[in-house]
């Protein structure tokens, strides 16, 4: 069966957009996790001034709309002589926003670990850092996994905001076609299916990790 010219163009545009979306999502997810772990740990273990700085970062990026953050990154920062390409403006914006949310999950997980776990380790001669590395983080990771996974799934969807800074990804490509052919319903239904597939794949990977890292007593299920 031959696809109609409209669908041929739609699918090839969306596939092009999909690649851009993936190129946005993967580094944003990884960057967000790294920032989240660093900021979350600092918010729990940091010296006071550092802790306040990390708290402030999280408050600002969780407290303002992502659209506003992207606008400032792309249209505002050039006034200060800082220029981003559309792609990098989007990636940096997503990383910072996602990192703020991830830090919240990491922080919650770290705080949920009881004092006794520190006592147990310290009493054996672990240093503070060794305790955190060998005892606290492996437990916190498991506690944070579910929330962090959720945030990754949000990120996949809010990556569609990249078109705001003229980075044309999946949604942006679809929008162009929809406007051209004036067939919004079909186009956005197909875009929806693309995101659904992305999210399903991400969920599957997350589920695999959760199962692999499952330990009795860390009730995720």
């Amino acid at each position: 069966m031959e696809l109609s010219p409209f669908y041929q163009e739609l699918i090839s545009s969306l596939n092009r957009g999909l690649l851009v979306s993936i190129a946005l999502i993967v580094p944003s997810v990884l960057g967000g996790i790294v920032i989240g772990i660093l900021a979350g740990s600092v918010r729990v273990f940091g010296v006071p001034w550092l802790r306040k700085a990390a708290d402030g970062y999280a408050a600002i990026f969780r407290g303002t709309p992502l659209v506003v953050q992207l606008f400032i990154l792309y249209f505002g920062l050039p006034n200060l002589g800082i220029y981003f390409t559309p792609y990098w403006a989007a990636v940096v914006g997503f990383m910072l926003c996602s990192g703020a949310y991830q830090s919240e999950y990491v922080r919650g997980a770290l705080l949920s670990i009881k004092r006794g776990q520190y006592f147990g380790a310290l009493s054996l001669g672990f240093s503070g850092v060794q305790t955190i590395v060998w005892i606290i983080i492996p437990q916190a990771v498991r506690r944070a996994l579910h929330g962090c996974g959720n945030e990754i799934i949000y990120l996949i969807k809010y990556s569609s905001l990249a078109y705001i800074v003229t980075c044309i990804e999946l949604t942006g490509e679809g929008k162009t076609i929809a406007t051209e052919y004036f067939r919004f319903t079909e186009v956005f239904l197909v875009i929806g299916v693309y995101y659904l597939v992305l999210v399903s794949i991400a969920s599957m990977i997350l589920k695999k990790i959760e199962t692999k890292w499952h330990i009795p007593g860390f009730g995720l299920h």
Partner: protein
Amino acid sequence: MPQDVPVLSVKNITKSFSGVPILKGVSLELREGEIKILIGPSGGGKSTLLQCMNYLVAPDQGQIWLDGEEICITKKRDVYAYRRRVGMIFQDFNLFDHLTAIDNVAIALRKIKKISKKEALIRALKELEMVGLADKGHLYPAELSGGQKQRVAIARALAMDPEVLLLDEPTSALDPELIGEVIAVIRALANKGMTMILATHQIGLIRNLAHEILFMEQGLIVERGTPGELLSRGNPSRTQGFCDRLNELYDEN
């Protein structure tokens, strides 16, 4: 039997929490093979004392000597090294929740003593055997009973070859039918000549194991003596009164 040089000695420990004095100058000495038992009313400062003795809680004042060497709390490395030589057993076990029983015992051997994985596991298995849990090594803390958890905790502490063991109410969080298995392990340690200080309300341990009983109240050791001195019938000591009440409690149950 007790010798002359104290293994662990503690002088004039004081500690306040937010201005409230909890320890008001506590001193004691543990000689090799000696077993001291801390008793006294709840809130008297037994746990705080034991935690100060391991620097898990920093004492406000006071000195600690191990084998005649003063441990300087400001030197972190010295404190870590000191803790390796002084084992601690907690009321609520504090097993590492993300590790199996055998890894709980092995992890400090590997990460702190830097023993190879294989040798650490061999040693850990040996310690688990000693507490009767050789077949439970693969289970996680969430899969163990309270008594089993406490026995793993004891194995974990012993794997470090401590010179002294501090035990803070090791049986208080256990169901009555599980207390016996932990007591048996403590008795076996006593028979091997382990130096121990033990906070407990187990009347049997107090009577049979203690070389000296320390009665602690409001941050001070208010009475000390051998079970023979303090627990003879009709003795007006605080210890005797306290143990009578413990006895009544157990008789009622």
